[in-house]
Each structure stands twice: as structure tokens, then as C-alpha cells.
């Protein structure tokens, strides 16, 4: 059974069709890359899946249940976590506090006024583990706004991980990173995905990163799926080759 299933998902903005009848099935444990030139609708697709936007048409199913039209917090609570293309953090909190707040969202009594210490402890433990996995323990005490761009991107991933999601959506995680930072990030991410327990949807422009991490690739063009398959097949696909793998994006 697919963990995530999109069926004819469509989103229009006035006259513009940003996402055009996209159908997709992502299996459990799969790392699926979504690629396409700028304006292909990738971020809009993410926003539809995570409930930030409501679809004009079509459905989203997660773990067998429809989540179409649910609000963003609700969908997140179902087990989907995401990072953003433009880094979204809490800049004045320390990295550790950022991740702790992310982990806290998963605690059943997170809204408590009193007796919060237990909640903080569990959340802190999860935060600590996530920071370790991303190699950020050394800078955990620093304010998130003062971290390097690369560390900030990784911090966002740590926050998503701390929520122990069933589905992880990464929106251009290596965007803005230097060559070394990208290589390091790819190492870290590939280590995270190695045990096959994470289901990941990954938007990326950097093709090397895509080929290194993805099990399958879906290609979007002008909001519609034009190709979907194994990395080798996509590499050979003429339609895709012509437009997207020339390194223009």
C-alpha cells in the first residue's frame, strides 16, 4: 500500500494552473525526488500535501486515509513533517530550543501549564537525538538566526526529524549551500535514509544530489507529471533530458 497517494491533484490560481492533475504513489520507505524547472509547481505541490493550500480538485491520501482539505497543523499531526525552501526557523531561540519545540508538538500534553518539566525532558531527549544525527550537537546552544546557512538548512531537517514523521518532505534542502556543505549534507541525509525506514519526498534542483539519494524520480513540467520512474530511466528519457538535465535549472 502506498503511504502517500495523490489523485488528480490540481490547484489553480485564477487563470494559472500551478498543479495540473498530478497523480502519484509513494511507497513506504521510498525516497522520491520531485524535479522540474522553476515554476513547475513543486513547492505548490508540497503546500497542497501539507495543507497550506487547499486543492482546486483531486485528493491526497496518507496512510490510507484522506487528508484532503485538512488544515496544516492537523496534517502535520498525522505524521507528515516538512522543511521549507526559504529557511523557516525561530531565529532568537537556540538550535536546541528550535528542535525541542518541534519535538514538543508530538507530546500528548504539550499544552500544559504546569508539570511541563516532563514534557520538556522528553522533547529535549528527542531534540538531542535529532541534533546528533544531523551532526549539529556542537552548535546546539547558538541562536538559530546566527548559524551558517548550511547549518540552518540542516537544523530545519533536524526539526522535522524530531517529530518522528512517517513522511518527510524536504523542499530544496541543499539550496544555497556551498559545494562542501552540499557534499556534507548529502552524506548526512544518505545516512539518515540508509535504513529504509524513512519515507521521503524530496524537491531538488541539484541533479547529483537527486541521483545520490532518490529511489525514484517524478518529473513535473508546468504543473503536470511528464515522467515518473527509476533514476536510470529518467536519465535516458528524452523529454526530460532536453529540458531539465542540461543543468539549466
Amino acid at each position, binding site marked *: 500500500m502506498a503511504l502517500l497517494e495523490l489523485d488528480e491533484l490540481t490547484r489553480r490560481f485564477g487563470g494559472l494552473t500551478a498543479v495540473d492533475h498530478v497523480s502519484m504513489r509513494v511507497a513506504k520507505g521510498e525516497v522520491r525526488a520531485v524535479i522540474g524547472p522553476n515554476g513547475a509547481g513543486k513547492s505548490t505541490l508540497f503546500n497542497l500535501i501539507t495543507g497550506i493550500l487547499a486543492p482546486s480538485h483531486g485528493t491526497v491520501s496518507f496512510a490510507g486515509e484522506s487528508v484532503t482539505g485538512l488544515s496544516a497543523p492537523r496534517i502535520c499531526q498525522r505524521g507528515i513533517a516538512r522543511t521549507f525552501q526559504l529557511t523557516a526557523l525561530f531565529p532568537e531561540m537556540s538550535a536546541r*530550543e528550535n528542535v525541542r519545540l518541534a519535538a514538543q508538538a508530538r507530546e500528548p500534553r504539550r499544552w*500544559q501549564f504546569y508539570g511541563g518539566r516532563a*514534557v520538556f525532558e522528553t522533547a529535549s531527549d528527542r531534540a538531542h537525538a535529532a541534533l546528533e544525527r544531523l551532526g549539529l550537537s556542537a552548535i546546539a546552544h547558538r541562536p538559530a538566526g546566527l548559524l551558517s546557512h548550511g547549518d540552518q538548512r540542516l537544523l530545519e531537517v533536524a526539526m522535522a526529524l524530531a517529530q518522528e514523521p512517517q513522511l518527510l518532505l524536504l523542499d530544496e534542502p541543499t539550496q544555497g549551500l556551498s559545494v562542501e556543505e552540499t557534499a556534507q549534507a548529502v552524506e548526512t541525509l544518505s545516512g539518515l535514509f540508509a535504513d529504509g525506514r524513512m519515507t521521503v519526498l524530496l524537491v531538488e534542483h541539484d541533479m547529483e544530489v537527486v541521483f545520490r539519494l532518490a529511489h525514484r524520480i517524478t518529473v513535473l513540467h508546468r504543473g503536470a507529471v511528464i515522467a515518473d520512474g527509476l533514476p536510470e530511466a529518467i536519465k535516458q528519457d528524452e523529454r526530460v533530458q532536453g529540458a531539465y538535465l542540461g543543468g539549466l535549472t
Partner: protein
Amino acid sequence: MTLLTEALILGLFAMSLDLMVGYTRLISFGHAAAYGFGAYACGWLLLHTSLPMLAAIPLAALLAGVLAIGIAWVCTQASGVSFSMLTLAFAQLLYAVAYKWTSVTGGSDGLAGIPRRAGPFALHVFTGRNGFYYLVMIVLLGAFLFCRALVRSPFGAVLRGIRENEAKTLALGYSARLYKIAVVALSYGLGALAGALYAPFAGFANTELLFWLLSGQVLIMVIIGGAGTLIGPILGAAFFLIVEHQLSNYTEAWALFFGLIFIAFVMFAPEGIWGLVRARFRRSGAEPDVNRGVARAR
């Protein structure tokens, strides 16, 4: 002694606003609504029922808090400037109602002769001047401890998240709107508690307590004192009262000076007096002061 009591009451009022402004960055221009409502409600209860003071005060505050949930629900439909305008509009509405509903509120004259009724348990000790001071002190202390526990709790951590990046809190799975409604209701409730203390303290309640200038003054107290610190606003209230009493002997323009000082603080020292003091005691490299309130740059 009465000056000190008034300072403590205003301190409670300012601290209540800090929950909204300092910790969640919900700028309210209508907090006088809470204060005035608390004063009128408590005053009315003391005048028209035989409830003792120690019952009327919390009852008025509770009533305000419950009603504030509705106000909060309405105001949090919007955000940013629109939110602030809605809080102002609501306070104006309450002001107009108090002005016109003469039978209940006494119109522009207000309620007068509000008694400090001791009640059946002979708790007379609180009705005298010193006794009332201690009552206010106890209430402020209790409220302070409550607020401090609140902002240090997981709930408080979410408020800070909302302050710094509300969209991200939504993406993390928090129903941010509910948190905002809760903090606004609490804030109004505590503000009303201050107003409810004021009514028997001063012996009257009038429309001045709902006027937008008071909303402005309490906001100034919070900012100058130090938003997001709880203690800062209390200091700001004391500072305000001292300046008002001292300067008003020399010049009529003291409110003007205060406004100018306020602008200066917003521009150059947004963390306020207490914020500056706290920053002085933290060296760089250590854990940052996460309660820097409205000092955040864009």
C-alpha cells in the same frame, strides 16, 4: 502607601499585557477594556450585591476572562495591524457602551462610593489602607508566579514560537490560533483583575478607565519597562506613576514627555529598561536571552 498600592495595581495591569505583547507579539491597543471592565464589574458587584470584596474581585476577573475568549476569538481572525485595530475597536465599543448605558454604569459619571466590604469571615484586615496594600501585594505576587510558570512551560515555549515565526508553528503541528486565544483571554482576565482591585481601592470606576489613552499608557509601561520579561512592565508601571506624580507638579506636559520617551525606547532600546539590565548581565557566547521581546529585527 496609596501610591505604592496604585503602582502595584498598575504593575499587574502592565504585566498582564506583557503576556500578549512581550511573549506572543500580539500588540493590543485596547487593553483598557480589560481594566475598565474589571473595575466596573467589581464595582457593580460591590454596590449592588452583598458580596464581600474578596469574592467580587476574582469573580469580576473570571467573568472578564470568560468574555475575553469571545473577544479573542474575534480578534485573532486577523493578525498584525488588523488585530491591533480590532482590539482598539473593541475597547472603543466598550467605552461607548459604558458611556451610554447609564442605568448600569452611571454614564460619564461612573460608579461612585464603591465599598471595601469585608464579608462574613471578618477579614477586615484587608479593608484598611495598609491591609489593602498587602492584599494587592499578595495578588500581584500570585499573578507573577502564575505568569512566570506559564511562560516557562511548554505552553510558553509555543507562545515564543508564535512570536518568532507563526507560520512555522503551524507547520510543526500547533494550532496557533488556539494558543493565541488562550493567551489573549488570560491577558484580559489578569488585566481585569487589576481593574477589579482598582475599584475598591479608589472607590470609583468611570469611563476614563476604558479610554484609549490608558491603553496607550499601559503599552508604554510594557515597552519602557521591558517587554517579555514580566518584571519589566511592573517596573515600567512604577516608573510611569513616579514620573506622573513628580513631573505633573512642574509641568502639564508630562504625558507628552512620556510619549517621546516611549518613541525613543521603541527606536533605540526596544528591550526596555529591564531588558537592558538583563542584557548587561549576560556575556556574549552564553545562552542568549530568549525573552528579548520586541527587539527582533526584520
